[in-house]
C-alpha cells in the first residue's frame, strides 16, 4: 500500500473540505453572533453562509477534478460521480432552504452543522472506492440523520420515530458491516477494483454469498426496500418536512449510487447480470424479489394512507422498487437511469415536502384532506403540487416519466430474453398504473374537493421560490432529459 499524500488528498477532496469548513463556520457564526437574534434571522445568516459554501463546493466540483492518481484505491472522482455530487448538494440546499421556514428546532447552528456533515458523508459515499470508506461515510450520514429526526422535539411522534429509525438503522449498519467484512474475508481486499479483480470469473464462495446477502439487507434498510422498509413511514411522518425531504431525496441518491457501484463494479461478475437468463447463480434473484415486493407493497399500502407524508413514504418504497429494476439493467444506461431518476425524484419529493410544510404550517395537519381547496388558497403552489405529484406518478412530459421510461429501457436493453427482468418491468408498469390512483387522490383534494377554506393566501417567498425552482427543474429535466442523461451516459460509457 502506497503512503498517502495528504496534501494531494485534501486537494482531491476540496468540495468536501469546503463543506466541512462551511459547517463549522455556520455553527460558529450561530453560536457566537446570532444566538440572541430572532430565529428567522439566525436562519438567514446560517443559510447565507451555507449557500455560499455550497456554491463554492459546487464551483470546485465544476472546475474539474485533478488527476486522482494514487488515490484510486480510496476514491473515485469525476464523471458521473461529479454529477451525483452536484445533485446531492443541490438537493441538500433546497431541503435546507425550506427548513428556514420550518419551526423545526431552535438549535439552528446544529441543524445546519448536522445537515452539512450528512452532506459531506453523502459526498464520500458517492466517491468511495473502498469498503471501509464507504462504511464510514454511511455511518456519518446515518448518525446525522438520527439526530436530525430527533431534533423536531416539540413534535410528539418525532422521538419515537427517531428511536425506531435509530434502532433499525443500527441493525442495518450491523448487517452492512457484517456483509463488508465477509466480502473482505472472501477476497482479502477492501478496495473496489481489487475486489473485482479477485472475483474475476470465479464462482462465488459461500462466504461471499453470505456477505452479499448481508450487504443487500443492510442497504435494503437504507433505501427502504421491502421487507426492510418498516422504519420509513414512521420516520417520514415523525421527521420535520425538511428532514423528511432530505432522507427521501439526497440520502437515497447517495445510497443508491454507492449500492449501484458496489453492485456493478465490485460484484459485477458474481452478480448474475440481468442478461443471464439462468438464475442459478448470483444475487439477481435476491434483488428481483426485493424490487417486486417493494413495488407491490409500496403501491398497495400507499392507497390506504390518509397522511400525505406516509403516502409519500410508501410511494418512496415503491420508487425504490423501480430503481432496483434499473440496477439490474445494462450497466452504463442502468446507472445513468438510476441517477437521473433519483435526481428528478429528489426534486419532486423536496418540492412535495415543501408543500406539506406549507399546509402543515397553516392547517397543522399532514392529512391529505387538509389539501382540500388548496388551489384556491395557493393557486401557484397548487399547480406546482400538480407537477410534483404527476411527476412522481410518471406522467410525461415531467421528469418522473422519462426516469421510469429510462429505467425500464435500460433494464430491457440488457436482455429482452430475460423473463425475470421482463416480468419485473411488466409488474412495474402495472404498478405505476396503480400508483396513479393514489396520486390522483391527492390531486383530487387539491383541485376537485370543495372546501370552505378558500381565502387566497400568500405563501412564504422562500418556500415559493424553492417550490417553483423544483417545479421548473422537474419540467425542464422532463422535457429535455438530455441535459442530464447525455453527459451521464457519455461518462459511464
Amino acid at each position: 500500500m502506497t503512503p498517502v499524500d495528504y496534501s494531494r488528498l485534501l486537494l482531491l477532496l476540496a468540495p468536501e473540505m469546503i463543506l466541512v469548513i462551511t459547517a463549522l463556520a455556520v455553527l460558529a457564526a450561530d453560536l457566537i453572533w446570532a444566538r440572541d437574534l430572532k430565529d428567522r434571522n439566525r436562519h438567514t445568516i446560517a443559510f447565507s453562509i451555507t449557500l455560499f459554501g455550497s456554491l463554492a463546493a459546487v464551483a470546485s466540483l465544476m472546475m474539474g477534478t485533478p488527476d486522482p492518481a494514487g488515490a484510486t484505491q480510496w476514491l473515485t472522482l469525476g464523471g458521473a460521480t461529479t454529477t451525483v455530487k452536484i445533485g446531492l448538494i443541490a438537493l441538500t440546499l433546497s431541503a435546507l432552504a425550506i427548513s428556514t421556514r420550518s419551526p423545526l428546532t431552535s438549535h439552528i447552528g446544529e441543524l445546519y452543522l448536522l445537515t452539512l456533515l450528512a452532506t459531506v458523508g453523502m459526498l464520500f459515499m458517492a466517491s468511495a472506492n473502498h469498503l471501509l470508506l464507504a462504511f464510514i461515510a454511511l455511518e456519518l450520514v446515518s448518525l446525522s440523520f438520527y439526530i436530525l429526526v430527533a431534533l423536531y422535539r416539540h413534535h410528539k411522534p418525532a422521538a419515537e420515530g427517531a428511536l425506531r429509525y435509530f434502532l433499525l438503522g443500527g441493525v442495518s449498519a450491523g448487517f452492512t458491516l457484517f456483509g463488508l467484512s465477509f466480502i473482505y474475508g472472501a477476497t482479502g481486499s477492501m478496495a473496489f477494483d481489487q475486489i473485482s479483480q479477485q472475483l474475476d470469473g470465479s464462482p462465488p464462495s459461500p462466504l461471499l454469498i453470505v456477505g452479499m446477502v448481508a450487504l443487500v439487507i443492510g442497504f435494503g434498510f437504507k433505501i427502504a426496500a421491502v421487507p426492510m422498509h418498516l422504519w420509513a413511514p414512521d420516520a417520514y411522518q415523525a421527521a420535520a418536512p425538511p428532514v423528511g425531504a432530505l432522507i427521501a431525496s439526497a440520502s437515497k441518491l447517495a445510497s443508491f449510487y454507492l449500492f449501484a457501484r458496489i453492485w456493478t463494479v465490485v460484484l459485477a461478475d458474481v452478480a448474475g447480470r440481468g442478461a443471464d437468463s439462468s438464475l442459478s447463480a448470483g444475487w439477481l434473484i435476491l434483488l428481483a424479489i426485493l424490487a417486486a415486493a417493494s413495488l407491490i407493497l409500496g403501491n398497495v399500502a400507499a392507497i390506504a394512507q390518509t397522511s400525505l407524508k406516509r403516502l409519500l413514504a410508501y410511494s418512496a418504497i415503491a420508487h425504490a422498487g423501480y430503481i432496483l429494476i434499473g440496477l439490474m439493467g445494462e450497466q452504463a444506461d442502468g446507472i445513468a437511469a438510476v441517477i437521473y431518476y433519483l435526481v428528478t425524484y429528489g426534486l419532486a419529493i423536496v418540492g412535495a415536502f415543501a408543500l406539506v410544510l406549507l399546509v402543515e404550517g397553516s392547517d397543522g395537519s399532514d392529512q391529505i384532506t387538509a389539501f382540500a381547496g388548496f388551489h384556491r388558497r395557493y393557486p401557484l403552489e397548487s399547480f406546482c403540487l400538480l407537477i410534483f405529484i404527476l411527476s412522481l406518478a410518471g406522467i410525461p412530459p415531467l421528469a418522473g416519466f422519462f426516469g421510469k421510461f429510462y429505467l425500464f429501457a435500460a433494464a430491457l436493453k440488457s436482455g429482452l430474453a430475460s423473463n425475470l427482468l421482463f416480468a419485473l418491468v411488466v409488474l412495474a408498469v402495472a404498478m405505476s398504473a396503480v400508483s396513479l390512483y393514489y396520486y390522483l387522490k391527492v390531486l383530487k383534494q387539491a383541485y376537485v374537493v370543495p372546501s370552505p377554506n378558500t381565502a387566497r393566501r400568500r405563501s412564504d417567498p422562500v418556500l415559493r421560490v424553492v417550490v417553483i425552482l423544483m417545479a421548473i427543474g422537474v419540467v425542464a429535466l422532463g422535457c429535455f432529459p438530455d441535459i442530464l442523461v447525455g453527459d451521464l451516459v457519455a461518462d459511464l460509457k
Partner: protein
Amino acid sequence: MLSWTVYSSFIGAAVCALWPNLSPTGTRRVALTTALIGFLAALVCCFQYDVDSEQTVQFITEKAWVPSLGIGYLLGADGISLTLVLLTGLAAITGTLFSWNIETRTREFFAFFLTLIGGVYGVFISFDLFLLFVFYEIAIIPKYFLIAIWGSTRREYGAMKLVLYSFAGSALVLIGLLATFVEAGATSFSVLELIKHPFPRDFQLWAFPVTFIGFAILAGLWPFHTWAPTGHVAAPTGASMLLAGVVMKLGAYGALRFPMTLFPMGLAAWRDEIALLAVIGIVYGATVALVQRDFKFVIGYSSVSHMGFVLLGLMATSEVGLSGAVLQMFSHGVLASLLFAVVGRMVYARTHTKDLTELEAMQLARRLPFAAGTFVVAGFAGMGMPGFSGFIAELQVLIGAWNTFPSFAVVAGIGIIIGVTYTLRAMTKAFFGEASEFADDPAPPLTSITGPEKIGAVLLITATTLVGLYPRILLDLIVPSLNSPMFKPLLEP
C-alpha cells in the same frame, strides 16, 4: 405550420392558466382563438399536402431529443394524420363553443381543455413512438380534472375510472413500446426507421396483442369499454365532445400507427379474434344503448358501438376497410360531438334532467326546435343514413369486412339495425314525447339556444353532410397514404 397545432394549443393553455387578471369572457376568447388557429393550421396543411408525392409523410420536423436512446422529436403528417388533425380542430372549436357557459373556474377549465387538445394534436402528428406516447399520456390527465371538477353524474368515479383505464391501456402500450425498441436494436423510436426492421414472428405474436389492446382500450374495444360510457356521461359537455369525439380516436389511430404497421404478422394471427371483439362491441354497445333510461348513456354506449366499426374496419386490413375506419373515426368524431352537444348542453343544461322518461313529458321538439332538429340530423346520420358521413364510412367498413369476415359483416348489419332502434327510441322519447299535441304547456319556457351553440351545431352538421355527400374531400387524403409503402406489409400479408 403543422407543429403549430400543438404549440398554439399549449400556448393557449398557458395563457388561460397564467395570464394575470383574465376575465372569463377573455378566457373563452383566448380558447376560441387558439382552437381557430389550430383548425386553420390544420386546414392550411390539408391544402398544402401534396397528394401525388411519393413521400406520404410530409411537413416533417425532426430534431434529436434524447440521442442516447435514439429518441427524436419527429413531427409529420400523412393523409390519415391530417384527417384526424382536422377533426381535432373541429372538435376543439365546437367544444369551446359548447363550453361557453362554463362560469366556475373558467380559466382552469380552458387550460385543461386546451392541454388535452394539444396532446391530441401531438399524438396525431408524432412519427416518433416515444413522442407519440408522451402526447398520448399528456392527453390523459386533463381528462380527470375536466370530469372531476366540472362534471355531473358520479363525476369523481367516472373520472377516476376513465383515467385508470386509459392509464392501464397506456401501460400496456409502454411495455410493447419498450420491447419493440429493444428488439429493434435500441437505436430509434421513429416509425419510419422501425418499419424497416423485420420483427421476428414470435415477437410479433405477443407484442401485437399487448400494444393493440393497450391502444384499443382507449378506442372502447369490448370488453374494455366500460370506462367510456361512465366517463362520457360524467364529463361536462365540452369534455364529452372531446372524449367521444377525438380521444377515443387516439386509441384507434395509435393502434393503426404502431402495432398494426409494425407487426403485420402479429396482426394476421390475431385479426379474427380482435374483429370478433369489435363486432361484439358493435352489437353489445347498441343493445345496451337500447335499454338505457339516461339520455347521455344512450349516446355513451352508441360510441362504443360506433367505435366497433372503426376497429372492424382496421381488422379488415384492406384499403377499403382501412379508409373506412379512418373515415369512421372522423365521422364518429363529428357525430358524437354533435350528439353530446345536444344532450349535454342543449337539453341537460336547460332541463336539468337526462332521464328519458322525464324528458318524454317535456315536449322538447316544440320548446327547443333547434335542439330537436340537430338531434334528428345527428341521430339519422349516426344510424348510417346515406348522405351523411357515417354511411360512407360504415359502408366502406362493411365492404372491407365482407372480404375478410363475411359473417361479421352480417352481424355488424344487425348492429346497425339495433342502432336505428335505439336512436329512434331516444329521439322520440326525448323530443317527440307523447303529450305534445294535446296538453297545454304549463312548463316555464326554456332558455332558447344561444348563438355559440347554433354556430357549433351548424359547423358539425356541415362537416358530416359535406363528407357524406362528397367524401373525396377526405378520401383523397386518406387513400394515397394507405397506398404508401408504410402500409404495404399490412395490406399484403
